[in-house]
C-alpha cells in the first residue's frame, strides 16, 4: 500500500500539524475562542523563518523569530477582541486577511525556495539516518518538548487561570484573574505554536509559499476533533496527546486514501477528503455512544 517514504512523509506532516493542533486546542478548547488567525500565522511563521535563513541567520534563531511573529499576530487578534470588542471570530478573520498582505511584504514575492539553504534539519542528515527519517526524528523531539512545556504551563498558576478564563469568565474575574490579559496571552501562545509549525514546514518542504496557510484551521480542527474521538481528553495531558495522535492519524488517513488506487482519488481531492474526515470525526463518537447504549439496553 504505502511506500516507506509516503509513510514517513505522512508522519512528518502529522507531527507539524500536531503543533497546529496544540495551538487550536488552546484557542478553541481552553479559551473557547474560535480563532482563524492560524491560516495567516502558519505562512507568517514560514515566511519569517525563510527570509531570515536566506539572510544568513542561524535557522534555530530564525525559527524562534517565527514563533514571536506568530505570537504577535495572535496578540493582534486577541486585542481586537478584548480592547475593541470585535467578535472573536471576526477579529481573527480580519487578522488573517491582513496577514496575507503582510506575508507577501515579508517575502517580497509569492514564494521563496530554501532548498540549498542550511535549515534546522541540515545537521541531522550527518547522523546516518535514512534521508526521509530525519525530519520525523527531529520533529518528534520538538513535539515532545512542546507537549511537556505546554502541559506544565497548563498546570501552573497562570495556566490554571487561563483555563478558568475560558471555562467561566465571571468566576475567573471574581478570583482576581484579568480575563482580557489571559485571552491575549493564550491566543498569542496558540499562534506562536502555529508560527513554529509554519517555520518547520517551510524548512522540511524547502519552500515558503503565501498560499500554504489555506485550510490550516480545518486540518488543525480535524486533528483536534479526530484525536478527541480516539483519546478521551479527560485531562490536559490526554488532550495534548490526542492532538498529536489526531494529526498523525489524519495525515495517514489522507495518505492511504490517496494511495488506494481502487478509490481512484487524486491529490486535487484532498480538501474533499478532509471535509469528509472531519465530518466523520464529529459524527462517529456520537454513533459509537448510541450503539453502545442500544447494546446495553438489549442486555438489560
Amino acid at each position, binding site marked *: 500500500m504505502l511506500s516507506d517514504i509516503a509513510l514517513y512523509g505522512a508522519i512528518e506532516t502529522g507531527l507539524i500539524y500536531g503543533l497546529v493542533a496544540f495551538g487550536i486546542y488552546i484557542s478553541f478548547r481552553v479559551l473557547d475562542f474560535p480563532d482563524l488567525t492560524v491560516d495567516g500565522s502558519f505562512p507568517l511563521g514560514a515566511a519569517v523563518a525563510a527570509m531570515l535563513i536566506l539572510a544568513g541567520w542561524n535557522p534555530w534563531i530564525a525559527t524562534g523569530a517565527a514563533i514571536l511573529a506568530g505570537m504577535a499576530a495572535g496578540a493582534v487578534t486577541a486585542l481586537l477582541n478584548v480592547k475593541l470588542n470585535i467578535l472573536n471570530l471576526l477579529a481573527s478573520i480580519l487578522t488573517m486577511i491582513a496577514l496575507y498582505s503582510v506575508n507577501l511584504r515579508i517575502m517580497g514575492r509569492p514564494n521563496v525556495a530554501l532548498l540549498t539553504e542550511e535549515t534546522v534539519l541540515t545537521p541531522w542528515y550527518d547522523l546516518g539516518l535514512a534521508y526521509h527519517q530525519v525530519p520525523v526524528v527531529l520533529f518528534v523531539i520538538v513535539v515532545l518538548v512542546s507537549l511537556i512545556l505546554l502541559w506544565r504551563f497548563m498546570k501552573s498558576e497562570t495556566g490554571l487561570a487561563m483555563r478558568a478564563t475560558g471555562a*467561566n469568565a*465571571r468566576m475567573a474575574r471574581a*478570583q482576581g484573574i484579568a480575563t482580557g490579559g489571559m485571552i491575549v496571552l493564550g491566543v498569542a501562545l496558540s499562534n506562536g505554536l502555529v508560527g513554529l509549525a509554519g517555520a518547520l514546514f517551510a524548512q522540511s518542504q524547502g519552500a515558503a509559499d503565501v498560499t500554504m496557510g489555506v485550510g490550516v484551521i480545518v486540518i488543525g480542527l480535524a486533528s483536534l476533533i479526530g484525536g478527541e474521538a480516539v483519546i478521551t481528553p479527560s485531562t490536559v495531558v490526554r488532550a495534548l496527546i490526542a492532538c498529536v495522535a489526531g494529526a498523525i492519524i489524519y495525515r495517514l488517513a489522507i495518505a492511504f486514501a490517496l494511495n488506494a488506487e481502487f478509490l481512484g482519488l487524486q491529490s486535487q481531492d484532498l480538501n474533499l477528503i478532509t471535509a469528509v474526515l472531519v465530518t466523520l470525526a464529529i459524527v462517529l463518537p456520537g454513533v459509537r455512544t448510541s450503539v453502545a447504549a442500544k447494546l446495553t439496553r438489549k442486555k438489560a
Partner: protein
Amino acid sequence: MISATDLRLTFGKGTPLENPALRGMSLTVNQGEFVTVIGSNGAGKSTFLNALAGEVMVDSGKIIVDNQDVTKLPTHKRAGRVARVFQDPLAGTCEGLTIEENLALAIKRGQRRGLTAAVKKEYMERFRNSLSSLKLGLENRLGDKMGLLSGGQRQAVSLLMASLTPSAILLLDEHTAALDPKTAAFVLELTTQIIEEQKLTALMVTHSMKQALEVGDRTVMLHQGEVVFDIEGEKREGLEVKDLLGLFEKQRGLEIDDDSLLLD
C-alpha cells in the same frame, strides 16, 4: 470596612427602556458586621452587589473598601478585597476543573499568579480540613471534576472558596435561592458558621424576610434603588416578618406623601 456613598446608576440611558437601578444608594458596613439585605424585585439589590464587586460601573457616587477608593476599579482588581458567592450554584466554580484546582484558583484570589504548579502539596492539608468541615466526604474526592457534584455541594464549595483567603467583605447574592429547602438550610447554616468562626464582614442579599431577620446582626431594606430602612441591635431583636412589612408600609406611605407634596 466598606462604604458606598450616593451610588447612582441608570441602565439603558436615553432609551425607552431607561431603568434607574440605583438612586442615591448609601450604605456603610463596619468591620465584622453581618448585614442582610432585602427588597422586592427591581429594588436594586443585585445591582448594588454587582456595583460593589465591580461587575457594573456606577454613573456617580463613591465606593470605599478598606480606605481605598475602588469606584473605578474593574472586578479583578477588587477581588483581593471582595469575595463573592453567586446565586447560580454553577457560576462560582469551574465544572471542567477538579475540586483541588478550583480551590487552588481561590487560594490565590487577588494575588499574582506565577508559573509554579497551581496545585501545591502544602495546600493539601488545608484543602482537606476545610472540605471535611462540610461533612460531605469531599475531602476524599479532591481529584474529582467539579461537574460531578450536585448544585448544593458546589455552592458549599463556592462558599469555602470565598473564605479561603481573607477579604474586606464577603458578598452573598441570594446564594441559597436556587437550592432545594433542605440544601438551602444546610448552606445557610454553613454560611453563618464560617462568618462567625472567621469573623468575616459580610453582606447577604436574600429574598426571604424570615432569613434576613434570623441571621446576621443588621438588616437593610432596599426599595427603588435606595435604602428605605436600616435596623440593628435591640430594635432588630424580636422583630418578625409582619413588623418588617409594617415598617415597609410606613416607609412607602411616607414616600407617597412625598410624591403628593411634589405634585402640589
